[in-house]
């Protein structure tokens, strides 16, 4: 990771170097002292131990010096960190949603993207939002990370001065596909960014060749829990779902059979915990009432019909 991918790199790396430097010094001296003593004062060479008295001045010395050193470390840690919390006014604001198990970035003009595309040299503020469980947005190259906590509005910011692509990882355990909750930051020169920002079609995905219903499913990360090929992931597969007879447990814990019609699909998506498919768990799927419009719902259903 050469050069400065983000403005924080300098401060963070300095803190690392200072602390690791001091640590290495102590590690080496203490280890060397141990080895030396063990050899020099070996029982064969030195059968009679010296009688060494306690030494208060020494105790004070080796309390005071580490105290000063740790305060120094604290200081470097602190000054490397303060800029991370000082969000410049006028930063470009993007809403970053982390959900099981995908990232979604929503821009001020309503544009959505699975990658975080940002202009070079401009401060970017991320408003972190999670509808389900804890996640953590981590960009190693930028040295930043902040948890995405449901019900709490965490924010983070960064400024990248080097165009390129950098990994985004989820760093807070969030269930089955935690390790696959990946994305990328794409830092573009300003003009390119503006072009991208105003383009209606996301040039970073080949969305336009896929059926529109599938696009909706992908955008909302439904397919990280529901497979299209009949295999069981976290939720039941979408394959063959349409029109089939479902064994579900209703709210009173009773088993009932229902037919997978439009109504059923709608409740499954808007109120997933009302009727829980037998053999699956309540509470994993959250309500998508806010996320999916009636129009999109219709598109999903149209698409499900094709999955026989």
């Amino acid at each position, binding site marked *: 990771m050469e050069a400065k991918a983000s403005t924080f790199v300098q401060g963070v790396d300095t803190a690392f170097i200072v602390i690791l430097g001091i640590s290495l010094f102590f590690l080496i001296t203490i280890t060397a002292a141990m080895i030396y003593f063990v050899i020099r004062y070996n029982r064969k060479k*030195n059968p009679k131990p010296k009688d060494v008295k306690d030494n208060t001045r020494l105790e004070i010395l080796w309390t005071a010096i580490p105290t000063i050193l740790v305060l120094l470390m604290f200081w470097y840690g602190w000054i490397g960190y303060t800029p991370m919390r000082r969000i410049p006014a006028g930063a470009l604001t993007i809403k970053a949603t982390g959900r099981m198990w995908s990232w979604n970035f929503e821009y001020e003009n309503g544009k959505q993207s699975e990658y975080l595309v940002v202009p070079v040299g401009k401060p970017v503020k991320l408003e972190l939002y999670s509808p389900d469980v804890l996640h953590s947005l981590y960009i190693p190259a930028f040295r930043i990370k902040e948890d995405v906590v449901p019900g709490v509005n965490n924010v983070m910011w960064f400024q990248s001065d080097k165009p390129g692509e950098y990994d985004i990882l989820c*760093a807070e355990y969030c269930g089955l596909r935690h*390790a696959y909750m990946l994305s990328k930051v794409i830092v573009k020169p300003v003009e390119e960014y503006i072009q991208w920002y105003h383009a209606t079609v996301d040039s970073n995905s080949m969305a336009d060749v896929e059926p529109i219903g599938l696009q909706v499913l992908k955008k909302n990360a439904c397919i990280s829990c529901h497979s299209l090929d009949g295999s069981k992931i976290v939720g039941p597969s979408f394959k063959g779902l349409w029109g089939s007879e479902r064994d579900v447990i209703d709210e009173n814990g009773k088993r009932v059979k229902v037919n997978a019609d439009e109504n059923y699909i709608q409740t499954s998506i808007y109120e997933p915990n009302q009727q829980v498919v037998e053999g699956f768990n309540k509470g994993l799927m959250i309500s998508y009432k806010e996320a999916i419009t009636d129009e999109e719902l219709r598109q999903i259903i149209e698409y499900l019909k094709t999955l026989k």
Partner: protein
Amino acid sequence: MGENVQHLSFLQDNGGKKGILAWITTTDHKRIGLLYFYSLTVFFLMGVVLGILMRLELMNPGKDLVEPQTYNSLFTLHGVIMIFLFVIPGIPAVFGNIALPLLLGARDVAFPKLNLLSWYLYILGALMALSTLLFGNAPDTGWTFYAPYSVRTGTNVTMAVLAAFILGFSSILTGLNFIVTIHRMRAPGMTWFRMPLFSWALYATAWIQLLATPVVGITLLMIAVERMLGIGLFDPSLGGDPILYQHLFWIYSHPAVYIMILPGMGVISEMIPVFARRRIFGYKAIAYSSLAIAFIGYFVWGHHMFTSGMSGPARVIFSLLTFLVAVPSAIKVFNWVATLYGGSIDLKPPLLYALGFIFLFLIGGLTGLVNGALAADVHIHDTYFVVGHFHYVMFGGTGFAFFAALHYWFPKVYGKMYNVKHATRAFWVLFTGFNILYFPMLVVGMMGMPRRYYDYLPQFHIPNLISTFGSWIVVSGLIYMIVVLIQGYRKGTPAGKNPWGGLTLDWQTDSPPITENFVELPIVTEGPYEYK
């Protein structure tokens, strides 16, 4: 000490009962210590196997061995077993039980029946935790049980959480027993500052056990109730606050890391003077630093939450306190090394493990400082750097101290000596393998590989491969060590009362000690390490 032929050793004295019954109904502290030792070893080996399986899976990117769901259960159970069944009870329950009354010149602990009860609770908790492994549906939350995932997941979190609750209870009772023992049962003439340092360490530990454990107890109980009744205590969709859960969890679990390490430090403080034939340097500094660690350790828990969205001022305060808690640990290390100066050092296996402890704990502690720095932690939080850190302190620290204690008191407990040459070799295998296993984790963590990852990006491959390779060496070393000890138990030469030349009271009685420890209670007239 005259004619004690008529006194049976505690290993033989069945108190009129037969076979296994004489063990599982015993109230003798040494027998209870051994009960803990045997059960703990079994659980520990299970944890090791889970660890090895994880390493195999992580050997290459992509799927090597198990499904993601299985992997998630693997690290959860590995963490739960290692933390709640191995390192937390580890040294206090095994060697504290065996050695504390001996060191103090007492006949037993203050409440022998309670002591047995704690062991039963331990076994109950352990069986509950492990039952999830056998009956499937093992929890997949990580040992931290973070809400709201732990409330939502369909796996058997409730059982695991209740198990941890019961194990906490067992830990509390042990701590309570030790505190009262230390206050009330010291031999005549044994003032506070004539106590061996291991007792000081156990005393400080016991206070943490008493005051921190109930907090996590109630927190885990709340998770269990939340799952069973479907109410909202921490689940944000029902008005709860997941960050509050983290506070409560770490209010216990940070002090808990000192429950793990302080007894280990106590063991090391026993050994260094004995094998260097020198009075320990800075007795009072070491004793007080245990109390200081225990006390300051209560107020640094927030360093696990630097990226959770905690308020800025709280992050700064917790970071500052985290650095301060490192100072008493440093004081101990300096005093240990100073004790070696001018001594007459005999590099027997216990000392070797003790020095190995110092080296590995140094790496673990110093990487802890990296974690404690705000800027650095934002980068490495929840990465393999942290995994490296805590294996260095827990396994390199507490684990090696456990081995040191095992090699130190083995002749006392069984009255026989293991083969020193082979034990030394086993140490070197274990030590080398350890560093090959865990050092790459620090590197790959700095590169940005998050923890609890079933699969990883290609750039993280090489360190992971090396690490997996190291895990095989460690396991070989472990097997080697166990074989040496078992051989010692079966065929070892008689060890005699005092094979290492220790001055503390445990070495003044028979090996193995008689049931009530001493024929006549000793009277103490000077400090524990007065080599002349």
